[in-house]
């Protein structure tokens, strides 16, 4: 044994020569068995016989710590409030299927742990975390101005909503107002983003029930929106366009024409979608009465957005807690009655129409003026001023190095994202970076409600239901 002092613990004395405890020296039987399996796998030979006896899956034996109740709960092996179909089918008759994380229709890397009897679902356990990248923690190391680049990557199908909710929270802590034009631009971009997001949803919903052409059609119309986003922000996704204090840049010249094209082309496309699927008997069979969730269950599980509205819960944050001046525009909140996949389909189609209504009103009433606040502590000065004013140069330099300081306090701000209530809880300790940022993401709440909708259905319904809930895994895991 070497007598190198242990610098990490500060113990500069020579380490003791005492033998390690017996238990650590001898690998536990489980560990040895694991080793056997591993060696057999590497050598390409048959596994030891006990493995096959243990499970019908072969080398899938549990980790030694799986017996620990806390760990089991954490890893989804034991779920306290489980939805299980009660009947007298023998345990032996059931099989476990891991749908995902690598599966064509789990919308990213969701893993569904299915307990099947034939094709019938006995139990569903959504298992998440495959896309967790610690973005909420990352936010603590970024200044408030940089934070937008971070949050925009969470729900990658509705980046503008993420930026908007983050900016609204920061502005609330700062106590600043943004000019009317900035508010109108924000509404324009977020509502167009809702349309783009719902179009992706239409595409994938069609794809997952087997209407393969629907996917291309949805993508085709979404391209109109993305082209417009690219023109305005320079990027198709992850724009970092909505920022604390306003938006990054004014709308480009001729933006009205592009919006005009969107306003004419998308309603025509929606009519086509309705023609191809709305009355299609196969589509009706696949979606009606499938994946039902009641209004009570919606409230209990925190299901919001179009999914809750399809069940008849009249709850839209644009009406309940209007943000960014959305109450100036006239629109309806479509409601469903059955809470099944088909109602979600209808509600989302109608939401696209309502968003188009808002967009056309924004187009008609876009106020003139500044696109960001003139508070020099928050927004950089115009380029021209930097050349002539020392203070402007200092402001510019400080803003992009140190960032602006936000008064101490905490705030919860929510907007209606295409998926539902997207909230941000922001705590500031008076510095230039958030002390804590937490996103209340709708997809996360919706994924936990999946067992309610999926239990006691068929494998094919799993796919249809999952698509109809419209989870974005970046939004679930952050």
């Amino acid at each position: 044994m070497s007598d190198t002092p242990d610098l990490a613990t500060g113990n500069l004395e020579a380490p003791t020569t005492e033998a390690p405890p017996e238990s650590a020296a001898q690998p536990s039987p489980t560990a040895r068995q694991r080793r056997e399996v591993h060696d057999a796998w590497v050598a390409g030979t048959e596994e030891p016989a006990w493995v096959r006896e243990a499970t019908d899956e072969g080398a899938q034996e549990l980790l030694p710590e799986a017996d620990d109740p806390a760990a089991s709960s954490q890893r989804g092996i034991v779920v306290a409030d489980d939805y299980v179909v009660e009947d007298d089918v023998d345990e032996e008759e059931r099989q476990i299927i891991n749908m995902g994380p690598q599966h064509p229709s789990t919308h990213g890397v969701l893993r569904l742990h299915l307990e099947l009897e034939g094709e019938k679902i006995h139990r569903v356990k959504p298992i998440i975390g495959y896309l967790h990248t610690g973005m909420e923690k990352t936010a603590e190391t970024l200044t408030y101005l940089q934070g937008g680049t971070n949050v925009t990557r969470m729900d990658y199908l509705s980046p503008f909503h993420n930026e908007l909710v983050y900016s609204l929270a920061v502005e609330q802590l700062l106590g600043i107002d943004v000019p009317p034009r900035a508010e109108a631009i924000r509404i324009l971009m977020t509502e167009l983003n809702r349309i783009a997001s719902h179009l992706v949803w239409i595409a994938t919903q069609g794809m997952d029930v087997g209407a393969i052409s629907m996917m291309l059609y949805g993508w085709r119309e979404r391209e109109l929106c993305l082209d417009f986003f690219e023109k305005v922000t320079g990027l198709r996704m992850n724009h970092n366009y909505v920022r604390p204090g306003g938006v990054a840049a004014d709308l480009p010249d001729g933006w009205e024409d592009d919006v005009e094209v969107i306003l004419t082309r998308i309603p025509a496309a929606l009519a086509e979608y309705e023609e191809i699927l709305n009355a299609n008997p196969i589509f009706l069979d696949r979606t009606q009465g499938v994946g039902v969730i009641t209004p009570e269950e919606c409230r209990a599980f925190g299901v919001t957005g179009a999914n809750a509205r399809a069940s008849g819960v009249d709850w839209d944050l644009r009406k309940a807690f209007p943000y960014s001046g959305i109450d100036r525009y006239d629109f309806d909140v479509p409601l469903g009655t059955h809470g099944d996949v088909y109602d979600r389909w209808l509600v989302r189609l109608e939401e696209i129409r309502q968003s188009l209504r808002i967009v056309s009103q924004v187009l008609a009433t876009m106020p003139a003026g500044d696109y960001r606040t003139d508070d020099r502590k928050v927004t950089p000065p115009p380029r021209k001023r930097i050349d002539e004013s020392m203070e402007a140069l200092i402001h510019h330099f400080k803003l992009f190095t140190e960032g602006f300081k936000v008064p101490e306090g905490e705030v919860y701000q929510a907007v209606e994202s295409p998926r539902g209530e997207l909230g941000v809880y922001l705590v500031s300790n008076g510095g230039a970076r958030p002390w804590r940022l937490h996103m209340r993401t709708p997809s996360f709440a919706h994924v936990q409600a999946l067992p309610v909708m999926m239990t006691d259905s068929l494998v094919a319904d799993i796919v249809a239901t999952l698509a109809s809930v419209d989870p974005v895994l970046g939004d679930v895991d952050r």
Partner: protein
Amino acid sequence: MTGWETLLTAAIKVAVAFALLLSLTIVLVWFERKIVADMQNRLGPTRAGPYGMLQTVADGVKLLFKESVTPRRVEFALYIAAPIAALVPALLIFLVIPIGRPFTLGDRVIDLAGTDLNVAVLYVLALSSLAVYAVVLAGWSSGSKYPLLGAVRASAQMISYEAAMGLALVPVILFTGTTSIRAIVDAQAGEFLSFLGIWNIVLVPSFLIFFIAGVAETNRAPFDLVEAESEIVGGYHTEYSGFRFALFFLAEYINIFNISALTTTLFLGGWHGPTFGAPEWLAWVFPIVWFFVKTVALVFVFVWIRASLPRMRYDQLMQFGWKRLIPLTLVWIILSTVAIGFRRFGAPWG
């Protein structure tokens, strides 16, 4: 004809049929991809060859050179046998389908069909039921769960629709009074509106049921839940790769062609069509052209359906098969039997 000549003719016919089916598959895959792409506002294959026509060749060559991965838990003998079991019946069915009218070479009359059986219709039904074995064997021997689900779906689906398919042919057999495919084609010859034969398509319900059951037999959309990608990944061929997968793929497309060719033969007059008064040395070309035109039109319907319809669910598929299709077929058999009886023996009141 001497024995040697018979043998030689048969050998040539088999070789031609085999080559024809393989090259047709290449064209059909390209055809399907182009048509679907067009319906979906895409371009489809454009790179390999003119209009991307060689794309399938490139894909095929790629598959041949790929490693055939064998998972460790397979039942090896059955796992290997399954793709062969899929391909062989598909190839055999084609042998009884006449693709043109017989032509004379010297003093010999040569049928443009592999052979002519007097029970050809039963032969076709028997072979198409064999196809289910390939799917079930593949799914079961893979030793994996998604293929197993696919195999369970396949066994239920293909057996159910086999029944509807067989029943749909009963009126055809009664109408033409034969189970020989050549005789059925001959029965559809005739002069109607100066060139049209009286095709069996007058038995419209039979035609529709046979075609629907055919789509289900070949596991194509909207009955493709045997290999539903969005649900059970690849279905029964999830664990197959390389050449073995290519065999399944080949079998699927040959089956599509077979069902279309059979529908053409049994209902759309086979190779019959106008020859526009062409001279005798040229007249044998028209039947072949007519046969392929009709068949490809039906293949187009396959593709069209695939591009437009969502997939059915397992229980709905069974309901559709047993509660709608088969009762309908039975009612139709009774009705058509009465009608055919009247036609042949005269109405009792007449």
